[in-house]
């Protein structure tokens, strides 16, 4: 088990490192790194990547932290709806948002700019557009729209477990609300904010779709698009590997920093039973608070979904709707476009097999390591969580290097993409299953064995039913994560192994927005059906 997992996780990293230090004659060289540092066309994307990711992190914290507080701690109306919509932004693939924002925020034909020009009697090209999505800030904006749910969830969850007592204790000792917020609430959610910032940073740093859609047309490269362009024929594998290593290092450093920050002081809230949450009245502040939600969710959900729907049903996406309606794009995608069927099939095969194998793997590893049943159980949990530190595109470079040369040639088959998905999703799956397993007290299993059941029997009769919700959720998480994957797939697919996401990416090359919108909607429908399935299959007795 340990060896299998090590091969899965470490082999790509091994080849990545080796290739980055090897020249064409297979000799040791630092040339690739020297090239990286000397060449403006590498340093600039790296700097762009760092500052845009940091900007996304800051933007997410500035908007999502108040949103988290408003939902967790105030009498804001419509909280349940907001939570649902934030979940929707969470599961919306960022590159779909990128597509939608091209249609919304293109400087001249974008729907928002059209409204803006019309409203103020301006003319496109003469006036400055209201938004120009083809820019570094456009990219930051769209990435933030689909990463803010991380920060929101961290903040809201952490406020959920901070008892109101801690704030009331401050109030009764004479602190006005703003001082309580400053001295008590803010420091207590600080770890969540830091964690949220780092996750948002890492997410943005590793995204491929949004920069490729929004920044490339403006002539701006990020590390992911740079690595991708190095992969075009003739592939410069040594350079691509060397360019991947800095991303890997940044990720590892940030994750360590996070662990260090979270680990100091006993931040976990202590003490006994608390009186629960007291909700603040908003009064007149409800209006700006609602405004924040309407703006953020409008930009991440309402407008993008709206424009995709519109584009799927009109001939010319920038024209008016009247007299422009058509089902042509649907007919084309589902009856003429020969790639649709294969791409859908590949996506389903990959999604369900990665989900099934990933869930089995995560559950087995979780059980073996948490119940300390095999040698090396500590390495197991380390290896299962290690891929968190590997950005998708870096993993793809590693997998490409590992499986295009004998003994195992997997490039050109679904297997290599399958491996990428399983590896990439393993940490999420493992965490999910492990937390379910932790909530099953070992005494529940001991009780079964004392009454005569074997370990295996206990696993089947007691443990499995108790962690069922976690396992179902894991399967669906991995499935959703896999069908939307773009940043690793983009390097690993071949003509026969296309998925829906790369098909859409290819269609974008020729600006075929109608078919893209149709496929986007299809993908969203599948995703939301899966989310609904989680709810449906959840055993309520265990929640």
């Amino acid at each position: 088990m340990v060896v299998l997992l090590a091969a899965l996780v470490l082999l790509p990293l091994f080849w990545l490192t080796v290739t980055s230090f090897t020249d064409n004659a297979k000799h040791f060289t630092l040339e690739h790194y020297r090239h990286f540092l000397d060449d403006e066309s590498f340093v600039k994307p790296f700097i762009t990547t760092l500052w845009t990711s940091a900007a996304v992190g800051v933007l997410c914290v500035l908007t999502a932290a108040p949103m988290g507080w408003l939902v967790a701690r105030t009498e804001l109306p419509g909280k349940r709806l907001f939570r649902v919509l934030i979940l929707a932004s969470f599961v919306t693939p960022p590159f779909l948002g990128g597509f939608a924002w091209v249609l919304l925020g293109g400087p001249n034909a974008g729907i928002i700019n059209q409204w803006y020009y019309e409203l103020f009697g301006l003319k496109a090209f003469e006036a400055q557009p209201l938004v120009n999505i083809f820019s570094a800030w456009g990219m930051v904006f769209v990435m933030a729209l689909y990463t803010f749910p991380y920060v929101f969830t961290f903040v809201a969850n952490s406020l959920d477990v901070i008892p109101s007592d801690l704030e009331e204790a401050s109030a009764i000792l004479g602190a006005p609300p703003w001082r309580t917020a400053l001295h008590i609430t803010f420091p207590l959610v600080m770890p969540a904010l830091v964690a949220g910032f780092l996750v948002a940073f890492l997410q943005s740093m590793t995204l491929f779709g949004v920069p490729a859609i929004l920044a490339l047309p403006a002539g701006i490269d990020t590390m992911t698009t740079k690595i991708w362009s190095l992969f075009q024929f003739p592939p410069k594998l040594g350079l691509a590997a060397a360019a991947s290593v800095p991303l890997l290092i940044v990720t590892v450093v940030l994750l360590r920093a996070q662990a260090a920050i979270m680990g100091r002081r006993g931040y976990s809230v202590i003490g006994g039973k608390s009186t629960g949450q007291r909700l603040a009245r908003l009064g007149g502040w409800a209006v700006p608070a609602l405004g924040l939600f309407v703006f953020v969710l409008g930009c991440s959900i309402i407008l993008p979904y709206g424009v995709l729907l519109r584009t799927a049903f009109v001939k010319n996406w920038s024209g008016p709707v009247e007299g422009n309606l058509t089902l042509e794009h649907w007919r084309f995608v589902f009856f003429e476009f020969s790639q649709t069927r294969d791409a859908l099939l590949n996506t389903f095969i990959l999604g369900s097999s990665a989900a099934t194998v990933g869930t089995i793997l995560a559950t087995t590893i979780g059980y073996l390591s948490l119940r300390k049943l095999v040698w090396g159980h500590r390495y197991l949990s380390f290896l299962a969580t290690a891929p968190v530190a590997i950005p998708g595109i870096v993993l793809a470079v590693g997998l490409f290097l590992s499986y295009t040369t004998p003994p195992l040639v997997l490039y050109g088959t679904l297997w290599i993409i399958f491996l990428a998905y399983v590896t990439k999703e393993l940490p999420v799956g493992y965490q999910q299953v492990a937390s379910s397993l932790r909530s099953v007290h070992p005494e529940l299993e001991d009780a079964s064995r004392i009454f005569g059941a074997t370990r295996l029997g206990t696993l089947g009769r007691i443990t499995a039913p108790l962690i069922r919700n976690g396992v179902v959720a894991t399967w669906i998480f991995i499935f959703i994560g896999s069908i939307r994957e773009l940043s690793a797939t983009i390097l690993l697919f071949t003509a026969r192994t296309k998925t829906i996401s790369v098909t859409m990416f290819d269609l974008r090359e020729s600006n075929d927005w109608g078919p893209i919108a149709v496929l986007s909607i299809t993908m969203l429908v599948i995703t939301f059906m899966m989310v609904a399935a989680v709810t449906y299959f959840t055993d309520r007795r265990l929640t």
Partner: protein
Amino acid sequence: MESFHRRSFIAALIAAAALPVAAQETTPAMVAAAEKEGKVVWYSSVDVKVAEGVAKAFREAYPKIPVEVERSGSERVFQRINQEYQSGIKNVDVVNSSDASHFIFWKDQKWLAPHTPPDVKRFAARYKDPDGYFATWRATLSVMAYNTKLVPEADAPKGYLDLLEPKWKGKLTKAHPGYSGTALTGTFALTKALGWEYLEKLSKQGVQQLQSTTATPKSIASGERMVMVDGNEYNMFIEIDKKSPVKIVYAKEGTPFVGSPTAIFAGAPHPNAARVFQNFLYTAKIQQLLIDEGGARSVHPDVKEPVGRTPLAQIKVLPDDPVAMLPKVEEIKKRYTALFGN
């Protein structure tokens, strides 16, 4: 995978043995063998809807041989095939690319199979490879164009040098030679006619950089940009047929001619289907379809230009020169990327 390769390899051997070299017409035996192979895989850089239209026509003629279309930009098609061949993946049967230099490269690599469809015998010599490896399947012009709602006719640019006027700053769109074969061929022709200094000046005009020459016409049709520096003439015809507010400009400096050949790969997994399909591609019927529905130019002697389109003879053309371009491809892409970004 293993058995798959072996089977297709044996099939190729049988096909090669069964077919006398001269007999390149579609025979019932060839069709039967093609049907047994099950399908044909076609990589093409033609607009995806035109590609699927061709595939549909083929399906109507040969219902038992479905066409798998893999559409991408010419340079991407080239990269994909090379990457696949380097990794030992033989997936492609028939290829079409708007960068004619690709075919010279593949021919040098000995990756192509010689095959002359019956119709090609009647093509002028300059539209086909002397050794019979490829021939111009379609042609397009890399034209300039503008949005008629946003630009009055009097203000419209007449040629490439007009685009350097300050008033066009931030209003231009252009395809990328690193991605599009048409853009590469056209950009190469521009550097020959106007020099790199022209592109340097153009790069300071805030040009929207799209990837494909199929994308730029859509950009001006939607009004995202006013003027297109290069784009497929055939996409322009499609837009004009859709009543989009656009108009073509044949630049006074000349319009790059972009021949787009097709060829069969020697390692094609479906060799008979490839030949049936290749023959079909050059028939007058499909050539006419390319013109009527695809807006392309054809070098087939039997086709008719529709009314309303400027006949090729009346346009000042900058001819393509794949042999001269091939050694310069990397340099063009690199210098261009340095000026315009990726």
